[in-house]
Protein backbone atom coordinates (compact mmCIF):
# COMPACT_ATOMS: atom_id res chain seq x y z
CA UNK A 1 0.00 0.00 0.00
CA UNK A 2 2.57 2.49 -1.09
CA UNK A 3 1.77 6.13 -1.49
CA UNK A 4 -1.52 7.77 -0.65
CA UNK A 5 -3.84 6.50 -3.37
CA UNK A 6 -7.55 6.31 -2.61
CA UNK A 7 -7.52 2.70 -1.38
CA UNK A 8 -4.78 3.26 1.21
CA UNK A 9 -6.32 6.50 2.39
CA UNK A 10 -9.70 4.94 3.03
CA UNK A 11 -8.09 1.87 4.59
CA UNK A 12 -6.28 4.11 7.10
CA UNK A 13 -9.56 5.98 7.63
CA UNK A 14 -11.21 2.64 8.37
CA UNK A 15 -8.49 1.77 10.88
CA UNK A 16 -9.05 5.11 12.56
CA UNK A 17 -12.78 4.50 12.70
CA UNK A 18 -12.17 1.11 14.33
CA UNK A 19 -10.10 2.79 17.03
CA UNK A 20 -12.73 5.49 17.64
CA UNK A 21 -15.58 3.02 17.62
CA UNK A 22 -13.79 0.63 19.98
CA UNK A 23 -13.24 3.50 22.40
CA UNK A 24 -16.92 4.32 22.25
CA UNK A 25 -17.76 0.64 22.80
CA UNK A 26 -15.55 0.36 25.88
CA UNK A 27 -15.96 3.82 27.46
CA UNK A 28 -19.68 4.45 27.10
CA UNK A 29 -22.12 2.91 29.54
CA UNK A 30 -25.38 3.77 27.82
CA UNK A 31 -26.46 0.83 25.64
CA UNK A 32 -27.56 2.97 22.70
CA UNK A 33 -24.22 4.74 22.65
CA UNK A 34 -22.47 1.38 22.64
CA UNK A 35 -24.73 0.39 19.78
CA UNK A 36 -23.71 3.49 17.82
CA UNK A 37 -20.08 2.62 18.59
CA UNK A 38 -20.71 -0.95 17.39
CA UNK A 39 -22.03 0.37 14.06
CA UNK A 40 -19.09 2.74 13.72
CA UNK A 41 -16.60 -0.11 14.27
CA UNK A 42 -18.58 -2.23 11.82
CA UNK A 43 -18.49 0.36 9.07
CA UNK A 44 -14.79 0.92 9.83
CA UNK A 45 -14.10 -2.78 9.29
CA UNK A 46 -16.11 -2.74 6.08
CA UNK A 47 -14.14 0.32 4.91
CA UNK A 48 -10.86 -1.53 5.52
CA UNK A 49 -12.23 -4.60 3.76
CA UNK A 50 -13.62 -2.63 0.80
CA UNK A 51 -10.50 -0.46 0.46
CA UNK A 52 -8.30 -3.59 0.44
CA UNK A 53 -10.46 -4.78 -2.47
CA UNK A 54 -9.92 -1.58 -4.42
CA UNK A 55 -6.13 -1.61 -4.47
CA UNK A 56 -6.02 -2.24 -8.22
CA UNK A 57 -7.70 0.92 -9.59
CA UNK A 58 -7.15 -0.41 -13.13
CA UNK A 59 -9.27 -3.52 -12.58
CA UNK A 60 -11.99 -1.72 -10.60
CA UNK A 61 -13.16 -2.69 -7.12
CA UNK A 62 -13.12 -6.43 -6.31
CA UNK A 63 -16.82 -7.56 -6.29
CA UNK A 64 -16.34 -10.28 -3.66
CA UNK A 65 -15.62 -7.91 -0.75
CA UNK A 66 -18.45 -5.69 -1.98
CA UNK A 67 -20.93 -8.56 -1.78
CA UNK A 68 -19.62 -9.63 1.62
CA UNK A 69 -19.88 -6.06 2.89
CA UNK A 70 -23.52 -5.80 1.79
CA UNK A 71 -24.18 -9.05 3.66
CA UNK A 72 -22.25 -7.65 6.64
CA UNK A 73 -24.25 -4.43 6.64
CA UNK A 74 -27.54 -6.33 6.66
CA UNK A 75 -26.30 -8.59 9.50
CA UNK A 76 -25.17 -5.49 11.42
CA UNK A 77 -28.61 -3.98 10.92
CA UNK A 78 -30.24 -7.18 12.18
CA UNK A 79 -28.07 -7.18 15.29
CA UNK A 80 -28.79 -3.49 15.90
CA UNK A 81 -32.53 -4.02 15.52
CA UNK A 82 -32.55 -6.84 18.10
CA UNK A 83 -30.34 -4.85 20.48
CA UNK A 84 -32.58 -1.78 20.18
CA UNK A 85 -35.62 -3.89 21.02
CA UNK A 86 -33.76 -5.43 23.99
CA UNK A 87 -32.72 -1.99 25.29
CA UNK A 88 -36.25 -0.60 25.02
CA UNK A 89 -37.71 -3.67 26.75
CA UNK A 90 -35.07 -3.43 29.51
CA UNK A 91 -35.80 0.29 29.97
CA UNK A 92 -39.50 -0.53 30.39
CA UNK A 93 -38.73 -3.30 32.92
CA UNK A 94 -35.79 -1.88 34.88
CA UNK A 95 -36.05 1.85 34.19
CA UNK A 96 -32.45 2.23 33.00
CA UNK A 97 -30.49 1.67 29.81
CA UNK A 98 -27.23 0.43 31.33
CA UNK A 99 -26.14 -2.94 32.71
CA UNK A 100 -26.23 -3.06 36.54
CA UNK A 101 -22.46 -3.62 36.86
CA UNK A 102 -21.89 -0.47 34.80
CA UNK A 103 -24.11 1.64 37.01
CA UNK A 104 -21.70 3.86 39.04
CA UNK A 105 -22.59 4.05 42.69
CA UNK A 106 -25.18 1.41 43.47
CA UNK A 107 -23.69 -2.10 43.65
CA UNK A 108 -24.64 -3.92 40.52
CA UNK A 109 -24.06 -7.38 41.95
CA UNK A 110 -27.24 -8.62 43.61
Amino acid sequence: MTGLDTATLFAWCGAGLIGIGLYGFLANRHMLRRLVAFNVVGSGIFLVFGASGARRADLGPDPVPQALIITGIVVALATTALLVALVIRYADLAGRATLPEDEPGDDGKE
Partner: protein
Amino acid sequence: MILPALAPALSVAVPLAAAFLAVVAPRPRLLVGVTVPAMLAVMALAVLGVRQGGPLVLAVGGWEPPLGIALVADGLSTAFLVATALTIGTVLVVALPQFPIRQNETRAGWAFWPLAFLLWAALNAVFLSGDLFNIYVAIEFVTLATLALVALEGKAKQVEAAMRYAMFALFGSLAYLLGVALLYAAHGTLDIGLLAQLPAQDTASLVAAGLITAGLAAKTALFPFHAWLPPAHAGAPAPASAMLSALVPKASFYVLLRFWFDAMPEAAGAIALQLLGALGATAIVYGSILAVRQNRLKQLVAYSTVAQIGYLFLVFPLAGGSAEPQPWTAGAWTGSVFHAVSHAFAKAAMFLAVGHAVLAAGHDRMSAMDGLTRRMPMTAFALGVSAVTLMGLPPSGGFTAKFLLLTAAFASGQVLWAAIIVLGGVLAAAYLFRPLARAFLPDRGRYGTVPRAQQALPLALAMLSVVLGIVSAAPYDFLQTGRPAAAEEGLE
Protein backbone atom coordinates in the same frame (compact mmCIF):
# COMPACT_ATOMS: atom_id res chain seq x y z
CA MET B 1 -23.84 -43.43 -4.22
CA ILE B 2 -24.80 -39.80 -4.64
CA LEU B 3 -27.20 -39.79 -1.65
CA PRO B 4 -24.61 -39.25 1.13
CA ALA B 5 -23.20 -36.33 -0.85
CA LEU B 6 -26.53 -34.57 -0.20
CA ALA B 7 -26.25 -34.96 3.57
CA PRO B 8 -24.43 -31.65 4.17
CA ALA B 9 -27.01 -29.71 2.15
CA LEU B 10 -29.99 -31.45 3.73
CA SER B 11 -28.70 -31.00 7.26
CA VAL B 12 -29.09 -27.23 6.83
CA ALA B 13 -32.13 -27.22 4.52
CA VAL B 14 -34.39 -29.48 6.63
CA PRO B 15 -34.27 -27.49 9.89
CA LEU B 16 -34.69 -24.24 7.90
CA ALA B 17 -37.80 -25.63 6.22
CA ALA B 18 -39.10 -26.78 9.61
CA ALA B 19 -38.49 -23.30 11.02
CA PHE B 20 -40.39 -21.62 8.19
CA LEU B 21 -43.31 -23.99 8.78
CA ALA B 22 -43.13 -23.33 12.53
CA VAL B 23 -43.53 -19.60 11.81
CA VAL B 24 -46.47 -19.93 9.46
CA ALA B 25 -48.29 -23.02 10.76
CA PRO B 26 -47.28 -23.56 14.42
CA ARG B 27 -47.99 -27.27 15.05
CA PRO B 28 -45.00 -28.36 17.14
CA ARG B 29 -46.04 -31.98 17.72
CA LEU B 30 -46.24 -32.61 13.95
CA LEU B 31 -43.09 -30.60 13.17
CA VAL B 32 -40.94 -32.29 15.79
CA GLY B 33 -42.39 -35.66 14.82
CA VAL B 34 -41.31 -35.19 11.21
CA THR B 35 -38.08 -33.17 11.51
CA VAL B 36 -36.24 -35.10 14.24
CA PRO B 37 -36.46 -38.53 12.55
CA ALA B 38 -35.66 -36.95 9.18
CA MET B 39 -32.57 -35.27 10.61
CA LEU B 40 -31.43 -38.48 12.30
CA ALA B 41 -31.73 -40.20 8.93
CA VAL B 42 -29.66 -37.44 7.31
CA MET B 43 -27.06 -37.84 10.05
CA ALA B 44 -26.90 -41.58 9.48
CA LEU B 45 -26.41 -40.85 5.79
CA ALA B 46 -23.59 -38.43 6.59
CA VAL B 47 -21.83 -40.87 8.91
CA LEU B 48 -22.17 -43.63 6.28
CA GLY B 49 -20.84 -41.37 3.55
CA VAL B 50 -17.87 -40.10 5.55
CA ARG B 51 -16.99 -43.57 6.86
CA GLN B 52 -16.87 -45.04 3.32
CA GLY B 53 -15.72 -42.25 1.07
CA GLY B 54 -13.75 -40.00 3.39
CA PRO B 55 -14.67 -36.32 3.82
CA LEU B 56 -17.68 -35.13 1.79
CA VAL B 57 -16.80 -31.81 0.09
CA LEU B 58 -19.78 -30.04 -1.52
CA ALA B 59 -19.05 -26.88 -3.57
CA VAL B 60 -22.30 -24.94 -3.14
CA GLY B 61 -23.88 -23.97 -6.45
CA GLY B 62 -21.17 -25.83 -8.31
CA TRP B 63 -18.63 -23.00 -7.79
CA GLU B 64 -15.28 -24.27 -6.52
CA PRO B 65 -13.44 -22.22 -3.87
CA PRO B 66 -11.90 -19.58 -3.87
CA LEU B 67 -14.90 -18.18 -5.71
CA GLY B 68 -17.67 -20.33 -4.16
CA ILE B 69 -18.25 -21.74 -0.70
CA ALA B 70 -17.31 -25.36 0.11
CA LEU B 71 -19.30 -27.36 2.68
CA VAL B 72 -16.95 -29.88 4.28
CA ALA B 73 -18.24 -32.90 6.22
CA ASP B 74 -15.21 -34.74 7.63
CA GLY B 75 -14.90 -36.76 10.83
CA LEU B 76 -14.84 -33.74 13.13
CA SER B 77 -17.80 -31.89 11.62
CA THR B 78 -19.95 -35.02 11.31
CA ALA B 79 -19.28 -35.84 14.96
CA PHE B 80 -20.50 -32.39 16.00
CA LEU B 81 -23.46 -32.66 13.60
CA VAL B 82 -24.52 -35.96 15.12
CA ALA B 83 -24.07 -34.63 18.66
CA THR B 84 -26.20 -31.56 17.78
CA ALA B 85 -28.89 -33.68 16.15
CA LEU B 86 -29.18 -36.03 19.13
CA THR B 87 -29.09 -33.23 21.72
CA ILE B 88 -31.54 -30.87 20.02
CA GLY B 89 -33.75 -33.80 19.01
CA THR B 90 -34.14 -34.85 22.64
CA VAL B 91 -34.53 -31.25 23.83
CA LEU B 92 -37.34 -30.61 21.33
CA VAL B 93 -39.26 -33.69 22.41
CA VAL B 94 -38.84 -32.70 26.07
CA ALA B 95 -39.97 -29.15 25.26
CA LEU B 96 -43.25 -30.32 23.64
CA PRO B 97 -45.30 -30.23 26.87
CA GLN B 98 -43.55 -27.08 28.12
CA PHE B 99 -44.35 -24.96 25.02
CA PRO B 100 -47.77 -26.25 23.92
CA ILE B 101 -49.79 -24.57 21.16
CA ARG B 102 -53.37 -24.42 22.50
CA GLN B 103 -56.18 -22.62 20.71
CA ASN B 104 -55.05 -19.13 21.82
CA GLU B 105 -51.40 -19.00 20.84
CA THR B 106 -49.04 -17.68 23.52
CA ARG B 107 -45.90 -15.58 22.88
CA ALA B 108 -43.29 -18.04 24.14
CA GLY B 109 -45.35 -20.98 22.94
CA TRP B 110 -45.09 -19.74 19.37
CA ALA B 111 -41.61 -18.17 19.42
CA PHE B 112 -39.70 -21.12 20.94
CA TRP B 113 -40.24 -23.48 18.01
CA PRO B 114 -38.96 -21.41 15.07
CA LEU B 115 -36.05 -20.18 17.20
CA ALA B 116 -35.10 -23.76 18.16
CA PHE B 117 -35.19 -25.01 14.58
CA LEU B 118 -33.28 -21.94 13.39
CA LEU B 119 -30.63 -22.48 16.07
CA TRP B 120 -30.34 -26.07 14.85
CA ALA B 121 -29.90 -24.93 11.24
CA ALA B 122 -27.37 -22.29 12.33
CA LEU B 123 -25.28 -24.79 14.31
CA ASN B 124 -25.29 -27.21 11.37
CA ALA B 125 -24.25 -24.36 9.09
CA VAL B 126 -21.28 -23.56 11.35
CA PHE B 127 -20.18 -27.18 11.58
CA LEU B 128 -20.34 -27.68 7.82
CA SER B 129 -18.91 -24.47 6.50
CA GLY B 130 -15.42 -24.48 5.04
CA ASP B 131 -15.35 -20.74 4.32
CA LEU B 132 -14.33 -18.20 6.97
CA PHE B 133 -16.85 -15.47 6.03
CA ASN B 134 -19.65 -18.00 5.74
CA ILE B 135 -18.71 -19.10 9.26
CA TYR B 136 -19.06 -15.42 10.31
CA VAL B 137 -22.62 -15.26 9.00
CA ALA B 138 -23.46 -18.64 10.54
CA ILE B 139 -21.94 -17.70 13.93
CA GLU B 140 -23.89 -14.40 13.88
CA PHE B 141 -26.99 -16.48 13.09
CA VAL B 142 -26.27 -18.70 16.12
CA THR B 143 -25.65 -15.67 18.35
CA LEU B 144 -28.86 -13.90 17.38
CA ALA B 145 -30.96 -17.04 17.80
CA THR B 146 -29.32 -17.57 21.21
CA LEU B 147 -30.01 -13.95 22.20
CA ALA B 148 -33.69 -14.40 21.38
CA LEU B 149 -33.85 -17.69 23.32
CA VAL B 150 -32.11 -16.19 26.37
CA ALA B 151 -34.61 -13.32 26.50
CA LEU B 152 -37.59 -15.63 25.84
CA GLU B 153 -38.87 -15.56 29.44
CA GLY B 154 -39.19 -11.78 29.09
CA LYS B 155 -38.41 -10.78 32.69
CA ALA B 156 -35.86 -8.07 33.61
CA LYS B 157 -33.16 -10.58 34.67
CA GLN B 158 -33.33 -12.44 31.35
CA VAL B 159 -33.31 -9.32 29.19
CA GLU B 160 -30.35 -7.99 31.19
CA ALA B 161 -28.50 -11.30 30.70
CA ALA B 162 -29.26 -11.13 26.98
CA MET B 163 -27.87 -7.60 26.75
CA ARG B 164 -24.70 -8.52 28.63
CA TYR B 165 -24.29 -11.56 26.32
CA ALA B 166 -24.85 -9.29 23.32
CA MET B 167 -22.03 -7.00 24.40
CA PHE B 168 -19.53 -9.84 24.52
CA ALA B 169 -20.92 -11.46 21.36
CA LEU B 170 -20.79 -8.19 19.40
CA PHE B 171 -17.18 -7.61 20.39
CA GLY B 172 -16.45 -11.20 19.42
CA SER B 173 -18.04 -11.02 15.98
CA LEU B 174 -16.42 -7.67 15.17
CA ALA B 175 -12.98 -9.00 16.05
CA TYR B 176 -13.62 -12.16 14.03
CA LEU B 177 -14.92 -10.15 11.05
CA LEU B 178 -11.87 -7.87 11.07
CA GLY B 179 -9.62 -10.92 11.20
CA VAL B 180 -11.41 -12.48 8.20
CA ALA B 181 -11.21 -9.20 6.28
CA LEU B 182 -7.46 -8.96 6.86
CA LEU B 183 -6.97 -12.60 5.85
CA TYR B 184 -8.85 -12.01 2.59
CA ALA B 185 -6.85 -8.84 1.98
CA ALA B 186 -3.60 -10.74 2.57
CA HIS B 187 -4.32 -14.03 0.75
CA GLY B 188 -7.22 -13.36 -1.62
CA THR B 189 -9.18 -16.42 -0.41
CA LEU B 190 -11.46 -17.30 2.48
CA ASP B 191 -11.49 -21.10 2.06
CA ILE B 192 -9.89 -23.03 4.95
CA GLY B 193 -8.42 -25.66 2.65
CA LEU B 194 -6.71 -23.10 0.41
CA LEU B 195 -5.49 -21.05 3.40
CA ALA B 196 -3.76 -24.13 4.77
CA GLN B 197 -1.49 -24.29 1.71
CA LEU B 198 -0.38 -20.66 1.96
CA PRO B 199 2.52 -19.50 4.18
CA ALA B 200 1.00 -17.46 6.98
CA GLN B 201 3.77 -15.58 8.75
CA ASP B 202 3.16 -12.02 7.49
CA THR B 203 1.90 -9.35 9.90
CA ALA B 204 -1.62 -9.21 8.43
CA SER B 205 -2.12 -12.95 8.96
CA LEU B 206 -0.75 -12.88 12.51
CA VAL B 207 -2.89 -9.87 13.47
CA ALA B 208 -5.85 -11.60 11.85
CA ALA B 209 -5.13 -14.83 13.76
CA GLY B 210 -4.98 -12.93 17.05
CA LEU B 211 -8.22 -11.09 16.34
CA ILE B 212 -10.04 -14.27 15.28
CA THR B 213 -8.88 -16.12 18.40
CA ALA B 214 -9.89 -13.25 20.71
CA GLY B 215 -13.25 -12.93 18.99
CA LEU B 216 -14.05 -16.62 19.19
CA ALA B 217 -12.79 -16.85 22.77
CA ALA B 218 -15.29 -14.15 23.71
CA LYS B 219 -18.08 -16.15 22.07
CA THR B 220 -16.97 -19.38 23.78
CA ALA B 221 -17.00 -17.61 27.18
CA LEU B 222 -13.37 -18.50 27.85
CA PHE B 223 -12.18 -17.24 31.21
CA PRO B 224 -11.82 -13.48 30.95
CA PHE B 225 -15.01 -13.31 28.83
CA HIS B 226 -17.15 -15.72 30.88
CA ALA B 227 -19.24 -13.18 32.85
CA TRP B 228 -22.19 -13.41 30.46
CA LEU B 229 -22.67 -17.19 30.42
CA PRO B 230 -24.11 -18.06 33.86
CA PRO B 231 -26.94 -15.48 33.97
CA ALA B 232 -27.76 -16.12 30.30
CA HIS B 233 -27.89 -19.91 30.52
CA ALA B 234 -29.56 -19.94 33.95
CA GLY B 235 -32.20 -17.41 32.89
CA ALA B 236 -33.33 -19.15 29.73
CA PRO B 237 -36.14 -21.74 29.95
CA ALA B 238 -34.73 -25.21 30.74
CA PRO B 239 -34.96 -26.76 27.24
CA ALA B 240 -33.40 -23.61 25.77
CA SER B 241 -30.60 -23.50 28.33
CA ALA B 242 -29.93 -27.18 27.60
CA MET B 243 -29.35 -26.32 23.94
CA LEU B 244 -27.37 -23.17 24.76
CA SER B 245 -25.07 -24.63 27.37
CA ALA B 246 -24.41 -27.85 25.51
CA LEU B 247 -23.90 -26.61 21.95
CA VAL B 248 -23.52 -22.87 21.41
CA PRO B 249 -20.07 -22.36 23.00
CA LYS B 250 -18.99 -25.54 21.18
CA ALA B 251 -19.79 -23.90 17.82
CA SER B 252 -17.25 -21.12 18.32
CA PHE B 253 -14.76 -23.58 19.86
CA TYR B 254 -15.23 -25.78 16.73
CA VAL B 255 -14.28 -22.81 14.56
CA LEU B 256 -11.19 -22.24 16.72
CA LEU B 257 -10.25 -25.91 16.21
CA ARG B 258 -10.79 -25.58 12.44
CA PHE B 259 -8.76 -22.35 12.34
CA TRP B 260 -5.79 -23.44 14.43
CA PHE B 261 -5.53 -27.02 13.22
CA ASP B 262 -6.68 -26.77 9.60
CA ALA B 263 -6.39 -23.19 8.33
CA MET B 264 -3.11 -22.01 9.88
CA PRO B 265 -1.38 -24.93 11.64
CA GLU B 266 2.08 -23.32 11.93
CA ALA B 267 1.05 -19.77 12.76
CA ALA B 268 0.58 -20.37 16.48
CA GLY B 269 3.52 -19.16 18.53
CA ALA B 270 4.35 -21.11 21.67
CA ILE B 271 3.37 -18.24 23.95
CA ALA B 272 -0.08 -17.92 22.33
CA LEU B 273 -0.72 -21.63 22.85
CA GLN B 274 0.43 -21.58 26.46
CA LEU B 275 -1.70 -18.47 27.06
CA LEU B 276 -4.80 -20.24 25.74
CA GLY B 277 -3.95 -23.24 27.92
CA ALA B 278 -3.47 -21.01 30.96
CA LEU B 279 -6.81 -19.25 30.37
CA GLY B 280 -8.46 -22.67 30.02
CA ALA B 281 -6.88 -23.85 33.26
CA THR B 282 -8.00 -20.71 35.10
CA ALA B 283 -11.49 -21.20 33.70
CA ILE B 284 -11.58 -24.73 35.13
CA VAL B 285 -10.53 -23.65 38.62
CA TYR B 286 -12.44 -20.35 38.71
CA GLY B 287 -15.62 -21.83 37.23
CA SER B 288 -15.58 -24.71 39.69
CA ILE B 289 -14.98 -22.49 42.73
CA LEU B 290 -17.88 -20.25 41.74
CA ALA B 291 -20.06 -23.28 41.03
CA VAL B 292 -19.44 -24.59 44.55
CA ARG B 293 -20.68 -21.27 46.00
CA GLN B 294 -23.94 -21.21 44.02
CA ASN B 295 -27.14 -22.09 45.84
CA ARG B 296 -29.42 -22.06 42.78
CA LEU B 297 -29.48 -25.20 40.64
CA LYS B 298 -29.48 -23.63 37.18
CA GLN B 299 -26.75 -21.15 38.18
CA LEU B 300 -24.65 -24.06 39.45
CA VAL B 301 -25.03 -26.00 36.20
CA ALA B 302 -24.27 -22.84 34.19
CA TYR B 303 -21.05 -22.17 36.13
CA SER B 304 -20.12 -25.80 35.55
CA THR B 305 -20.24 -25.01 31.81
CA VAL B 306 -17.73 -22.20 32.36
CA ALA B 307 -15.45 -24.73 34.05
CA GLN B 308 -15.91 -27.50 31.49
CA ILE B 309 -15.18 -25.12 28.59
CA GLY B 310 -11.76 -24.62 30.19
CA TYR B 311 -10.95 -28.29 29.43
CA LEU B 312 -11.51 -27.73 25.73
CA PHE B 313 -8.81 -25.06 25.53
CA LEU B 314 -6.17 -27.39 26.92
CA VAL B 315 -5.96 -28.89 23.43
CA PHE B 316 -3.96 -25.90 22.20
CA PRO B 317 -0.87 -26.26 24.40
CA LEU B 318 -1.06 -30.06 24.12
CA ALA B 319 -1.57 -30.53 20.38
CA GLY B 320 -1.27 -27.15 18.69
CA GLY B 321 1.47 -25.23 17.00
CA SER B 322 3.14 -27.72 14.75
CA ALA B 323 2.07 -29.08 11.41
CA GLU B 324 4.00 -32.34 11.64
CA PRO B 325 2.19 -34.46 14.26
CA GLN B 326 4.01 -35.68 17.39
CA PRO B 327 2.73 -39.08 18.57
CA TRP B 328 0.45 -37.53 21.20
CA THR B 329 -1.19 -34.73 19.15
CA ALA B 330 -3.89 -37.03 17.70
CA GLY B 331 -4.68 -38.27 21.22
CA ALA B 332 -4.99 -34.77 22.65
CA TRP B 333 -7.01 -33.48 19.70
CA THR B 334 -9.43 -36.42 19.81
CA GLY B 335 -9.58 -36.16 23.58
CA SER B 336 -10.82 -32.58 23.44
CA VAL B 337 -13.40 -33.50 20.77
CA PHE B 338 -14.54 -36.43 22.94
CA HIS B 339 -14.85 -33.99 25.84
CA ALA B 340 -16.85 -31.53 23.73
CA VAL B 341 -19.30 -34.22 22.56
CA SER B 342 -19.74 -36.05 25.88
CA HIS B 343 -20.08 -32.72 27.70
CA ALA B 344 -22.79 -31.72 25.20
CA PHE B 345 -24.82 -34.85 25.99
CA ALA B 346 -24.23 -34.69 29.75
CA LYS B 347 -24.86 -30.94 30.11
CA ALA B 348 -28.03 -31.09 28.01
CA ALA B 349 -29.25 -34.06 30.08
CA MET B 350 -28.43 -32.27 33.32
CA PHE B 351 -30.20 -29.05 32.34
CA LEU B 352 -33.29 -31.01 31.20
CA ALA B 353 -33.31 -33.06 34.41
CA VAL B 354 -32.88 -29.93 36.53
CA GLY B 355 -35.66 -28.39 34.45
CA HIS B 356 -37.96 -31.25 35.42
CA ALA B 357 -36.95 -30.99 39.09
CA VAL B 358 -37.62 -27.23 39.02
CA LEU B 359 -40.94 -27.83 37.24
CA ALA B 360 -42.00 -30.29 39.95
CA ALA B 361 -40.81 -28.13 42.87
CA GLY B 362 -41.81 -24.71 41.52
CA HIS B 363 -38.48 -23.05 42.39
CA ASP B 364 -34.83 -23.66 41.52
CA ARG B 365 -33.24 -23.45 45.01
CA MET B 366 -31.24 -26.48 46.17
CA SER B 367 -34.19 -27.77 48.17
CA ALA B 368 -35.93 -28.56 44.87
CA MET B 369 -33.76 -31.68 44.80
CA ASP B 370 -35.02 -33.06 48.14
CA GLY B 371 -36.21 -36.65 47.93
CA LEU B 372 -35.75 -36.70 44.16
CA THR B 373 -34.77 -40.38 44.16
CA ARG B 374 -38.18 -41.31 45.54
CA ARG B 375 -40.35 -38.86 43.62
CA MET B 376 -38.60 -38.94 40.25
CA PRO B 377 -36.09 -41.84 40.22
CA MET B 378 -35.28 -41.53 36.52
CA THR B 379 -34.52 -37.81 36.77
CA ALA B 380 -32.25 -38.47 39.77
CA PHE B 381 -30.52 -41.23 37.82
CA ALA B 382 -30.10 -38.94 34.80
CA LEU B 383 -28.54 -36.27 37.05
CA GLY B 384 -26.24 -38.89 38.55
CA VAL B 385 -25.06 -40.26 35.21
CA SER B 386 -24.51 -36.81 33.69
CA ALA B 387 -22.62 -35.78 36.83
CA VAL B 388 -20.39 -38.83 36.36
CA THR B 389 -19.54 -37.64 32.84
CA LEU B 390 -18.89 -34.07 33.95
CA MET B 391 -16.54 -35.31 36.65
CA GLY B 392 -14.75 -37.47 34.10
CA LEU B 393 -15.25 -40.66 36.09
CA PRO B 394 -15.34 -44.01 34.26
CA PRO B 395 -17.27 -45.48 32.46
CA SER B 396 -18.27 -42.17 30.83
CA GLY B 397 -17.11 -40.44 27.65
CA GLY B 398 -15.79 -37.72 29.93
CA PHE B 399 -13.33 -40.19 31.40
CA THR B 400 -12.05 -41.29 27.98
CA ALA B 401 -11.53 -37.63 27.10
CA LYS B 402 -9.78 -36.94 30.41
CA PHE B 403 -7.60 -40.01 29.94
CA LEU B 404 -6.58 -38.99 26.40
CA LEU B 405 -5.76 -35.45 27.52
CA LEU B 406 -3.82 -36.78 30.54
CA THR B 407 -1.81 -39.20 28.38
CA ALA B 408 -0.98 -36.40 25.98
CA ALA B 409 -0.01 -34.11 28.88
CA PHE B 410 2.39 -36.69 30.29
CA ALA B 411 3.69 -37.77 26.86
CA SER B 412 4.50 -34.16 25.95
CA GLY B 413 6.00 -33.51 29.38
CA GLN B 414 3.61 -30.66 30.25
CA VAL B 415 2.72 -32.08 33.66
CA LEU B 416 1.00 -28.88 34.85
CA TRP B 417 -1.97 -29.46 32.54
CA ALA B 418 -2.28 -33.00 33.91
CA ALA B 419 -2.55 -31.66 37.45
CA ILE B 420 -5.17 -29.13 36.32
CA ILE B 421 -7.23 -31.80 34.54
CA VAL B 422 -7.28 -34.04 37.61
CA LEU B 423 -7.95 -31.11 39.97
CA GLY B 424 -10.84 -30.08 37.70
CA GLY B 425 -12.37 -33.52 38.12
CA VAL B 426 -12.21 -33.36 41.92
CA LEU B 427 -13.62 -29.80 41.97
CA ALA B 428 -16.43 -30.93 39.68
CA ALA B 429 -17.20 -33.65 42.21
CA ALA B 430 -17.30 -30.99 44.95
CA TYR B 431 -20.02 -28.91 43.30
CA LEU B 432 -21.97 -31.75 41.69
CA PHE B 433 -22.36 -34.01 44.70
CA ARG B 434 -23.91 -31.21 46.79
CA PRO B 435 -27.22 -31.25 44.88
CA LEU B 436 -26.99 -35.01 44.29
CA ALA B 437 -26.69 -35.68 48.02
CA ARG B 438 -29.92 -33.78 48.61
CA ALA B 439 -31.67 -36.17 46.23
CA PHE B 440 -31.34 -38.81 48.94
CA LEU B 441 -32.87 -36.62 51.66
CA PRO B 442 -36.49 -37.55 52.50
CA ASP B 443 -38.77 -34.89 50.95
CA ARG B 444 -41.52 -33.61 53.21
CA GLY B 445 -43.96 -34.72 50.48
CA ARG B 446 -44.62 -31.14 49.31
CA TYR B 447 -43.27 -31.40 45.75
CA GLY B 448 -45.04 -32.94 42.77
CA THR B 449 -43.56 -35.03 40.01
CA VAL B 450 -43.24 -35.16 36.22
CA PRO B 451 -44.71 -38.01 34.15
CA ARG B 452 -42.31 -40.94 33.77
CA ALA B 453 -42.32 -40.82 29.96
CA GLN B 454 -40.77 -37.35 30.06
CA GLN B 455 -38.23 -38.31 32.72
CA ALA B 456 -36.87 -41.02 30.42
CA LEU B 457 -35.59 -38.55 27.81
CA PRO B 458 -32.87 -36.81 29.86
CA LEU B 459 -31.84 -40.25 31.10
CA ALA B 460 -31.47 -41.50 27.53
CA LEU B 461 -29.32 -38.48 26.67
CA ALA B 462 -27.14 -39.01 29.76
CA MET B 463 -26.72 -42.69 28.90
CA LEU B 464 -25.48 -41.58 25.45
CA SER B 465 -22.46 -39.98 27.08
CA VAL B 466 -21.80 -43.25 28.95
CA VAL B 467 -22.13 -45.27 25.75
CA LEU B 468 -19.56 -42.90 24.21
CA GLY B 469 -17.24 -43.90 27.04
CA ILE B 470 -17.73 -47.62 26.53
CA VAL B 471 -17.92 -47.94 22.75
CA SER B 472 -15.19 -45.36 22.07
CA ALA B 473 -12.96 -47.22 19.60
CA ALA B 474 -15.28 -46.61 16.63
CA PRO B 475 -15.77 -42.87 17.26
CA TYR B 476 -12.00 -42.49 17.78
CA ASP B 477 -11.22 -43.87 14.30
CA PHE B 478 -14.17 -41.99 12.78
CA LEU B 479 -12.82 -38.71 14.08
CA GLN B 480 -9.50 -39.30 12.33
CA THR B 481 -11.08 -39.25 8.82
CA GLY B 482 -10.08 -36.04 7.17
CA ARG B 483 -7.37 -35.16 9.66
CA PRO B 484 -4.26 -34.14 7.69
CA ALA B 485 -1.96 -36.78 9.24
CA ALA B 486 -3.58 -39.26 11.59
CA ALA B 487 -0.69 -40.04 13.96
CA GLU B 488 -0.68 -43.48 15.55
CA GLU B 489 -1.70 -44.03 19.19
CA GLY B 490 -0.93 -41.35 21.63
CA LEU B 491 1.55 -43.25 23.73
CA GLU B 492 4.57 -44.68 22.01
